[in-house]
């Protein structure tokens, strides 16, 4: 159904879902860039963040508090996972790290299932963001507009942290040259713990923000994980701007192709990924020679 209003609606929708994907993907990229670890538990952390937000919301009744508490909880989860498990794996092959995070992901999903069951749980959007907002010929759920704004702000904050702080300097140094971080004479252990925590938080935070849009189940993370991978491959592994661009591209593909034949929008995502791999293997904004 290609009509002008629908086209504009879908472009906007692509932006909204793309921004969220970008946020999740940037977490994956930061972790990989600094620690050299591909986090296959990222989808599970997205899901866990949603459940953390759910618990916090029902304990406090405040959506904002739920977001804050949930995000902090995810930092702690990330840091603990890094401290207890990931740390043992820095000098082991990439493949071992991947297997480890894959296993962690399964354990998280099944723990949540054990604790919360498989019935869907939902977090209502805050009262001030319920309902729909008419935007000219486009009617759009208010809360999704809020999600777009939140994701935008979160990405901007991440940008500030990465490009304007000492921690960010270290992380970016790691992204550009993983050997260099060791030479800077920094307490690597603590930085790595923090970075994994921040990466987990990016996923978990997105999970909380997304909870009022897509209600929670333990299996929520798996499809997100695949989309995140596609985003990162399109954008370029280890590139923060690449994660953002990749996220937006993926969001637009999913939305715009649905106008032609919705059954194929998911497959179009993979077609574009393949094209990028063939034409520009390092990703749109990736640096050749890495990974």
């Amino acid at each position: 159904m290609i009509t002008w209003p629908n086209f504009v609606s879908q472009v906007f929708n692509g932006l909204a879902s793309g921004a969220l994907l970008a946020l999740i993907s940037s977490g994956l990229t930061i972790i990989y860039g600094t620690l050299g670890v591909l986090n296959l538990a990222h989808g599970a952390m997205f899901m866990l963040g949603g459940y953390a937000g759910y618990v916090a919301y029902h304990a406090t009744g405040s959506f904002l508090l739920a977001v804050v508490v949930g995000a902090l909880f995810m930092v702690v989860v990330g840091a603990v996972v890094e401290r207890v498990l990931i740390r043992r794996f820095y000098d082991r092959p990439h493949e071992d790290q991947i297997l480890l995070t894959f296993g962690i992901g399964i354990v998280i999903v099944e723990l949540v299932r054990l604790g919360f069951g498989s019935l869907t749980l939902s977090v209502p959007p805050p009262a001030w963001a319920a309902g729909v907002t008419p935007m000219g010929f486009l009617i759009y759920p208010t809360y999704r507009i809020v999600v777009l704004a939140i994701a935008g702000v979160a990405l901007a904050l991440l940008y500030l942290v990465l490009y304007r702080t000492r921690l960010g300097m270290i992380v970016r140094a790691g992204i550009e040259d993983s050997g260099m971080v060791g030479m800077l004479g920094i307490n690597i252990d603590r930085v790595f713990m923090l970075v994994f925590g921040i990466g987990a938080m990016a996923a978990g935070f997105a999970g909380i923000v997304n909870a009022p849009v897509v209600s929670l189940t333990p299996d929520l993370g798996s499809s997100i994980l695949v989309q995140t991978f596609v985003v990162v491959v399109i954008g370029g592994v280890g590139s923060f701007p690449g994660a953002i661009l990749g996220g937006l591209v993926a969001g637009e593909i999913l939305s715009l192709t649905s106008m032609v034949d919705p059954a194929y929008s998911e497959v179009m995502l993979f077609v574009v990924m393949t094209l990028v791999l063939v034409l520009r293997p390092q990703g749109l904004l990736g640096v050749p020679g890495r990974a």
Partner: protein
Amino acid sequence: MDSLAIGALRRRTVLRAGAGLAAASALPFGWSHPAAAAEPAMGTWPAGSSGDTVYVGITVPRTGTYAVQGEDELKGYMLAVEHINAGDPLIRAMSPRTTKGVLGKKVAYVVADSEAKPNTAVQAQSRFISENKVILMTGSTSSAVAVALNKLAQREKVLYVAGISGSNDTTGKDCVRYGFRQCFYGQTAAAALSPVLIKNLGKNKKVAYLTPDYTYGHTVQKSMEEYLKAGGWTTVTDQVAPLGAADYSSYLLNISNSGADVLVNINFGHDAVLSIQQARQFGILGKQTLIVPYQTPFLARDVGADLMAGVYAATDFWWTIQDAYPLAKMFVASFEKKFGYKPEWGAENAYMQFALWAGAVEAAGTFYPPAVIKSYEEGRHTPSLVGDVWWRGADHQLVHPVFIVRGRKAADMKSPDDYYEVLETVPGEGVMQAPDAFGCKLGPYT
């Protein structure tokens, strides 16, 4: 005894001697030759029913997106087994010859997580057949699993009664002699629901479909389109979404911009819950009437009364029909007493499948599978939770009513579980296709 069983190969001449051959299962290492199984011993018979206890194998999803429906179904089976062994009056109403157990034997069940995957279900049931010598298999929350188990049943010569299975194919082109389905399906749902919709909503409506991209979804969509034509309803868009899509925003935007009056949401399970919740977010539910042709158990509890208000749905069972059906009242009461909530139709369907099976076996007087099947096929009318029902011998589908319900406003609910009002009870025989219309060929008894 076949002395050549020491080797892998058998002489054809011996094969031709057919009648003298021993039961395949008696051969060392289980060498077998299905074509030669002319002897009465077949499947798990008589091994499965030679002791004091007979086993039934249950596979339902206990993990994954259908786990809720699976657990509900399992509770229905558990209650039925308990009632059969105790000779509960409810069972005896549906299976008059039952005293305690089935043919005097205690019924026990073994259960495995099917993860809603055909492969896992088939593997688990195969294990039950060889390990527990189950004489009956059951359980499914999707037609993929039901069809797979149908085929397993036919191959292994062990009866299978389906759980939830909405595809026309289960008793259509994928029907088998050894498989039976009780619940309603795409065709009956569409045929029963459409006239009610036209009556309540008027003629010449514009319809948007949200269809899950698999066989079940497409068949239901086609059936609905077909039956709604009678009222001059036209399709403005059919949004096909992949199974398990989390975010329906792009589909819903297309629907929102399509100018439809009515949204027919064919999604099942978790997909139904998510797509309905998101349709509300997009302000669609205010503008378009939502119709759910194939109601998912727990849908109303999951999405809440305010979303379900005014929604039209077809279903196999809703607990408030108990006002019209005394047996349903007994069932709802026992179920709630044991499990603490009102049963959904997955549990009701499960319970009835076992009750009707007990009745068929008692009527046959033997566990010998072809005799039990013939007992099913007699077309015997039986009182049930939903009134008088009978099996169609030609496609093994139970003839029973379809209930058309509409979501109540929260204010109109008389109790916390009173989500729907029953608009109409549509008798089964009128809405069912001819038994061979979907290409059903049942296959051999042996």
